[in-house]
């Protein structure tokens, strides 16, 4: 299976193994995104005048792959991912904007489980001779426990008519935050879990 037209009404997008291209020809919102177990490289093409949104909590466990989103023209792409990373992962999210008047927003939040090792690359590429595009990428991660997370935001802008920004923020759970929650009767480990869970879900609210 190399190329599919995604016409399902389901809010679950489970990328089938071996898929090279997925075409989104009508507006939709995905609430659950599932990556293939095998190494993958898949392109999602958003057709003109389509609003495509992904708002999903994702469990990454030994995932290695690249997902490329092609924004054509007059499309809206919103991607809010809350990633709980386990073991070893390498995920690359590319957004290539090849036409005019597209809006893209990629917001990723990552928490790593103990002893996990995760690399997240987010890349925006705004091609030459395009105009009136807006692009935003934002990665936040909680640096705690014995986990390794590396977030690499890239932005390639070949056009003069664009509004683009990208940033990475690293946060940690402070002793004062834990003390505050403990004074409300919440046990330390439950407090940590609450902070982690809410951190991942925040952009989806």
């Amino acid at each position: 299976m190399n190329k599919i037209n995604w016409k399902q009404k389901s809010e679950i997008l489970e990328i089938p193994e071996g898929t090279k291209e997925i075409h989104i020809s009508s507006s939709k919102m995905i609430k659950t995104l599932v990556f293939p177990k095998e190494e993958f490289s898949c392109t999602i093409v958003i057709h003109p005048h389509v609003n495509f949104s992904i708002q999903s909590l994702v469990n990454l466990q030994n995932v290695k792959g690249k997902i490329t989103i092609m924004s054509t023209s007059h499309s809206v792409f919103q991607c809010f991912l809350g990633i709980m990373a386990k073991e070893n992962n390498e995920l690359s999210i590319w957004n290539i904007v090849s036409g005019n008047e597209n809006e893209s927003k990629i917001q990723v939040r990552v928490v790593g489980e103990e002893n996990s090792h995760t690399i997240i690359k987010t890349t925006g590429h705004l091609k030459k001779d395009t105009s009136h595009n807006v692009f935003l990428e934002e990665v936040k991660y909680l640096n705690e426990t014995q986990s390794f997370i590396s977030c690499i935001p890239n932005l390639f802008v070949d056009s003069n008519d664009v509004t683009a920004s990208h940033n990475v923020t690293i946060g940690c759970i402070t002793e004062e935050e834990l003390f505050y929650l403990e004074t409300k009767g919440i046990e330390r480990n439950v407090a940590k879990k609450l902070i982690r869970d809410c951190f991942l879900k925040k952009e989806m609210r």
Partner: protein
Amino acid sequence: MLEIKDLTVKIEDKEIVKDFSLVIEEGTTHILMGPNGAGKSTICKSIMHHPSYHISGSIVFDGEELTKLSTDKIAKKKINYISQSPMEIEGITNAELIRTSLLEQNEKVNIFEFQKNSQVICEKLNIPKTFLHREVNVGMSGGERKKNELLQMYFLQPKLVLLDEIDSGLDVDAVFLVAKFLKEYQKETNCAYLIVTHGQQLIDLLQPEYIHIMKDGKIVETGDVKLAKKIQNLGFSGANFVSEDSHNE
């Protein structure tokens, strides 16, 4: 209810509180006053077993020693602490915090009762009902944070409440409202308050049974509301409080 005996608190090697003793009975209100740095806030945090403090002496609540318990276990004994500058907790809503806290205390959460109560409490505190769904203290003014903490307090139903400068950052009308809220809650539950404050307005409104003056980490005088009036007129230095240590010297 609460008996603090010979409490000494150190942060690293610095002694902040020395031989502090206090008894609080249920249904009573105790005000802790004193110059800046006297150790008033330290008392509240020590009761909650703040991890930075090295504590000796004893703190007994309803017959149980608190100094050996973790902070969450102390809170589960129905002791609530409201700090002078409540923290912002990004991502967690008040409703999530209250729900988690109640579940941790094995209390069932009745969603209909919760909704009904929240409307009443928000009206009493003059805050929108949406506060419950806002992230804890995020983007709130100083006064809103204090009201937000009182909102949480109501749902957690404490027997003893430690309020560290609850009136700071509140305008005159808000102090009226907070005092009324505290009095009603005390009438309803017979809880006790230990309140750190510099504000005469709050004292006048609450009419507490006890005023304690702290100096150099210990209580140097205890009285009633007249003592607060004396401080208001003379100041802490003018009232010339002398600790027992100074007498002995």
